[in-house]
């Protein structure tokens, strides 16, 4: 039976560049002959030193490298190429009569991708080279794709940031002007008018929250989250947040209770950012607890760290959804109990803010139901 003819390279491999390194001119001639027929572009070198010299000029897609040569041997040449060009280095295939198992191991350890024995079988050389060139091509395409995707992602963040920024001020004004109407500053309203204004106010409020969160995500993803830490009374900060959150909580007949500790920790924090974290945890606790719940906030400290926790009476974190908690748009299957909106961005933002403070944020289901979110921050003396 006729052995299958060595397949000619896929059209996209024509013109790929191979550097042949061998001190024996005859070997170079034979290899060149069979490779040229496949449409590859070739260059050669008759020593390891020469190979190092030719490599950057020729910029090959694959190197066929003999091992036993005067001067530096193939293994050394391979190690040097890998060192000089790192991940961008072309795959290196050894082709050698040095065929002991130890040699093969050393060849792969030096960074080679394959090891061909001499005397070689031309068809085998061709299929192996084709495979490595194809892998190399795929890797290049992947790299290009990743580059394009990260550029597209950066463009998306810029767009998101710009859109959110420009939407923010008008929305804040819509909300503020609705407040003026609602509070009767420009005249008393009928109950129907008041109802409409309340709706405008609530809608602009939730849109503003969404836009703020999108802006935060854009800022964080662009690597522009900057923390300006100063020593702050954490107890006061939490108390202020609890006071404001209790106004929202009262609408669901929920109470947030915070008993400040005797000794107040003063961590070095960006107050506005940590306040955002506390606000978010409180608003989640209200959102996911049934009406009439009790939310407890605790603040603890030791010599090196302080931590605050928010315990709710909600359904807890469903099994198997824990890893979604702190991810962008990682909405869980649990639903707000009062029809509130959720973007799935809040906890992802909290996570990034806490991380930027070198702290940790965790969530645990409580034995008696509900869950506790806790944030630990370092205390520097």
């Amino acid at each position, binding site marked *: 039976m006729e052995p299958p003819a060595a397949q000619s390279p896929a059209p996209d491999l024509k013109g790929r560049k191979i550097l042949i390194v061998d001190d024996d001119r005859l070997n170079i001639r034979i290899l060149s002959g069979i490779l040229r027929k496949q449409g590859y572009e070739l260059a050669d070198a008759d020593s390891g030193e020469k190979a190092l010299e030719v490599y950057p000029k020729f910029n090959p897609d694959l190197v066929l490298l003999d091992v036993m040569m005067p001067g530096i041997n193939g293994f050394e040449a391979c190690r040097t190429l890998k060192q000089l060009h790192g991940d961008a280095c072309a795959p290196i295939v050894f082709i050698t009569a040095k065929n002991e198992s130890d040699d093969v191991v050393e060849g792969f350890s030096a960074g080679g991708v394959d090891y061909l024995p001499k005397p070689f079988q031309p068809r085998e050389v061709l299929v192996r080279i084709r495979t490595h060139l194809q892998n190399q091509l795929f890797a290049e395409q992947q790299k290009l794709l990743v580059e394009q995707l990260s550029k597209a992602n950066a463009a998306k963040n810029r767009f998101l940031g710009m859109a959110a920024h420009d939407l923010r*001020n*008008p929305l804040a*004004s*819509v909300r503020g002007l609705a*407040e*003026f109407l609602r509070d009767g500053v420009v005249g008393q309203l009928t109950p129907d008018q008041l109802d409409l204004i309340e709706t405008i106010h609530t809608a602009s409020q939730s849109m503003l929250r969404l836009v703020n969160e999108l802006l935060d995500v854009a800022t964080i993803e662009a690597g522009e989250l900057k923390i300006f830490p100063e020593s702050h009374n954490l107890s006061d900060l939490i108390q202020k947040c609890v006071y404001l959150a209790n106004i929202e909580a009262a609408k669901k007949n929920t109470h947030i209770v915070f008993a400040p500790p005797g000794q107040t920790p003063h961590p070095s924090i960006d107050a506005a950012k940590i306040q955002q974290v506390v606000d978010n945890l409180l608003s989640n606790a209200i959102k996911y607890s049934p009406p009439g719940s009790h939310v407890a906030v605790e603040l603890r400290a030791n010599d090196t760290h302080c931590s605050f926790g928010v315990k709710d009476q909600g359904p807890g974190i469903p099994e198997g959804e824990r890893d979604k908690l702190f991810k962008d748009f990682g909405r869980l299957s649990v639903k707000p109990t009062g029809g509130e909106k959720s973007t799935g961005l809040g906890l992802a933002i909290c996570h990034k803010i806490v991380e930027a403070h070198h702290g940790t944020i965790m969530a645990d289901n409580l034995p008696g139901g509900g869950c506790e979110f806790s944030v630990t921050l370092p205390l520097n003396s």
Partner: protein
Amino acid sequence: MNFKGTILLVDDEAHIRKFVGLILKQLGATNLVEASNGQEAIAIYQRDNPDLVLLDISMPMKDGLTTLKELKAIDPHCVVVMLSSIVTRQSIDEALALGAASYIRKDTPKEEIAQAFNEVIETCFEHE
């Protein structure tokens, strides 16, 4: 608030001027003039010599920082309070270094803006 001086409110967005203007009026401010860009602000400042300037940071053409520099060159004693939206800390720090008296975030609920404004008045005019 018992501030009876003239306030110049500078912002390129009409809705912000309306919103902040309403807050100021509710606080008892009576002499309020508005400008919608830096150039206009400088012209009005030279004409009316207001006691307090509320100045938006990000405006097209002549931004808040440039306007602040020019106002300070005209009158080193002018009291300028920046109106900021997203807390671009760098711009605020820069404005404070250029001689701005303080800053107020205009994208917060009106009670917070009012409170911030009262605090600014207390700090800037307590000696009067």
